[in-house]
């Protein structure tokens, strides 16, 4: 489908129309697509549900029979259907066929779900008992994590040692998933010239309260991240707390206030630099470990804040990535304020 520049906002316009933020009347007559979509909605209210494409094809056929086959909308060329295909076409379009098929789909989906449920139940019956001492999952891998984890990684919290030292490559992949999700949302939802979405600030009581509450939440978030290798917590959970604090701040103080400090560009830069730092640090330990170069980072004394080699900065990087991703999602999905 070849789209030209001014047609690209089609989907956005439908979204705006659906949230009724666009003023009616002024724009309506000169927007044939919107008009067509409205007609379509009326049609499916009155008749059976059909797909938008099928509806447009039907309208196209009707117009063709009437002899006015100039396209009403300018954003796509109508399919010039080949001659040979047109003869058999009408017999396929019986009323209600799709609806009958849909009913079969519902029956079939329930049946399939039941069968899969039954099979999975059978499988679970045969699996080793959860938490049993002789379960195969309790093997030398887990034993080493728990018994030697403290001296090998310098982390008291075995989980942090596991995800950031033993299986750091997987965690790198997980951070990349988060980063990819954030970038995807930015790519789909952000347009450059669109003003930052505003939301009115909360009332005075909330603002007063937040003065006391927000610093504590932020502090707690950083505490969970920084002590991730000593006590329960770590980058992922602490980052979620930080992200929640940022969202709360922008709800109470208004997105404009927070947005002035944390512009979308800065948030992206923070994510990028965290991920880069993570990659560089892990590359160092992968490389030195694989080639047996030595040069290990000193582990320090387990239980102290500055211990465990790279664990502390790694946790910080993961935490920042999580917090920024959450905040980015929030700013992009914030509903626009109606005055």
């Amino acid at each position, binding site marked *: 489908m*070849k789209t030209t520049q001014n047609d690209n906002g089609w989907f956005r316009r439908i979204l705006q129309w659906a949230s009724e933020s666009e003023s009616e009347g002024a724009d309506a007559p000169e927007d044939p697509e919107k008009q067509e979509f409205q007609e379509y909605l009326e049609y499916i209210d009155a008749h059976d549900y059909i797909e938008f494409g099928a509806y447009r094809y039907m309208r196209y056929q009707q117009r063709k029979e009437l002899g006015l086959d100039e396209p009403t909308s300018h954003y796509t060329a109508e399919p010039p259907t080949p001659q040979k295909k047109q003869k058999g076409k009408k017999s396929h379009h019986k009323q209600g066929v799709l609806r009958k098929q849909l009913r079969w789909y519902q029956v079939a989906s329930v049946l399939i779900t039941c069968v899969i449920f039954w099979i999975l139940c059978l499988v679970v019956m045969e699996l080793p008992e959860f938490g049993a001492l002789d379960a195969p999952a309790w093997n030398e891998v887990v034993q080493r994590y728990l018994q030697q984890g403290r001296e090998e990684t310098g982390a008291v919290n075995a989980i942090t040692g596991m995800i950031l030292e033993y299986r750091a490559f997987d965690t790198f992949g997980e951070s990349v998933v988060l980063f990819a999700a954030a970038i995807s949302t930015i790519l789909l939802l952000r347009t450059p010239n669109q003003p930052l979405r505003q939301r009115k600030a909360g009332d005075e009581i909330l603002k007063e309260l937040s003065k006391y509450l927000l610093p504590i939440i932020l502090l707690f978030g950083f505490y969970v991240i920084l002590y991730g290798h000593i006590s329960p917590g770590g980058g992922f959970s602490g980052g979620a707390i930080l992200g929640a604090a940022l969202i709360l701040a922008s709800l109470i103080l208004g997105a404009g206030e927070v947005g002035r400090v944390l512009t979308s560009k800065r948030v992206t830069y923070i994510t990028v630099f965290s991920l880069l730092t993570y990659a560089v640090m892990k590359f160092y330990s992968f490389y030195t470990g694989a080639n047996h170069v030595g040069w290990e980072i000193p582990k320090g004394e387990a239980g102290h804040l500055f211990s465990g080699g790279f664990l502390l900065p790694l946790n910080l990087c993961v935490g920042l990535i999580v917090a920024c991703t959450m905040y980015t999602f929030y700013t992009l999905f914030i509903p626009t304020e109606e005055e």
Partner: protein
Amino acid sequence: MGLVYNIPLFSILLVVVSGVCIPLFRNGKHVIRFVQIVQLLVGAGSLFLMVGLSSLNESFTYQLGHVPAPWGNELRAGPLEGLLSFVFSLVMLLAFSGSRESLISDIKPHRLGNYCLLMQLLYGTLLAMIYTDDLFTAYVFVEVAAVTACVLVSAKESGRSIVSAIRYLMFNCLGSGLFLLGIAILYVLTGHLLFSSLQQAVEQYLLSGSSKLPLIVSALLMTLGLSIKSAQFPFHAWLPDAHASATTTSSAILSGLLLKGYLIILMKLMVCIFGPFVMVSSYLCDLLLLLGLAGMLFASVAALRQEEVKRMIAYSSSAQISYIFLSLGLGSQLGLLAACFQMIVHALTKSMIFLGAGAMINGVHGHYWGQLRGAARKVPLGGIAFTVGGLSLCGIPLLAGFSAKYCIALAALDADWQMAPALFGLAASSVLNAMYYIPAILVIWGRTKPNQEEEWKPISIGLEQKFALSFLLFCNLYLGMRFGLVRDLIEQGIYRFGSFG
């Protein structure tokens, strides 16, 4: 340890880090250049790795970090992995060069940077899928691929591409879910995620004869999940729309590479975990064969009915993927060889067809057959690429598709009862391929009305595009005429790949 052994880690990290750096750029066109340079570097590195390992005739595992494998992560590479990553890098690079113009015109400038970023992450993911030696690492990167691929489909903002991206997302989630369920069952049973430890544990279960049902169900779930993601026949509903509505670069890479990434994981499951014995005793091989056979025929029949060029090519992709399933389903080493060869041939051929079709679509500004009449006269090189690719998939000798079919047929002749159905499927699907590619070729080379003749003067396309299309044409001819070298390399690689040897 020599520098060669560091190439897998270097290439994955280089690609991902270069992707992450992209938001620091301001100009989208510079980003494309930057991405291409990285692809060139990684491609050269992979070539070096492949040649080095092939001459040493060895494969190695690369320990990531200070802790050895069952506790830490590791990568694994051999000649086959080197070859695959070289071909993937080549296709990435050529797809970017070959559709540079349509990329710039289809994607809005402020999105170009992020688009390239996601493409680069997808590329890194594919490399990780090739080199991984651990089930969970594979899953993590399958997830990255799912997120990035959906957005690559919807990056060209038209209503249809967004609808098809949402459909794609649904199928992707279903596939990931089933795959994860399979991994979970396998982990509870064995307590391992590393391929080699898993293989030992599974062998012990087989010897003792206990827990057969969970093993089979987990193998089935993983196979099902991966076949949904790689658009095998009954689960291919998302493919045509997703590939047809995306921009040309996305279609070429998704169809040419991404589907293969999942198949590489499936192949690793078959070879490195379950081994030939489980595959045959649990009828999994037969299932793959059946899926492959059905897909070869039905997807081709569906392709016959398409009125849009890209949709037809997308259905043809689904049919070609079925060839790989069929050869995997033969369950022999020859079948595996044929599957790998078909993967490489299809990656190169399908991207060439998509690029050719993209050039023609750009030339005539239409993508229905009626609008494409005579398009090849307007964009001759695009037309030649489409024609050669189409004929190659029909199995005309001296072209790459023929040698792939030849390998599959050789593998089929070696099998017992699977021989007749496989050969029949191969023949029937070749005829079907010809039934839709030859009319398409006739349409694009056909003359329009005499008074419109001057409208179809050849238009010039960029030098880079010309180079990319010519190089793909050369690869196709080379693989068609002298495929011995590549075949030997794959054979050597498979021997080093797993327990089949």
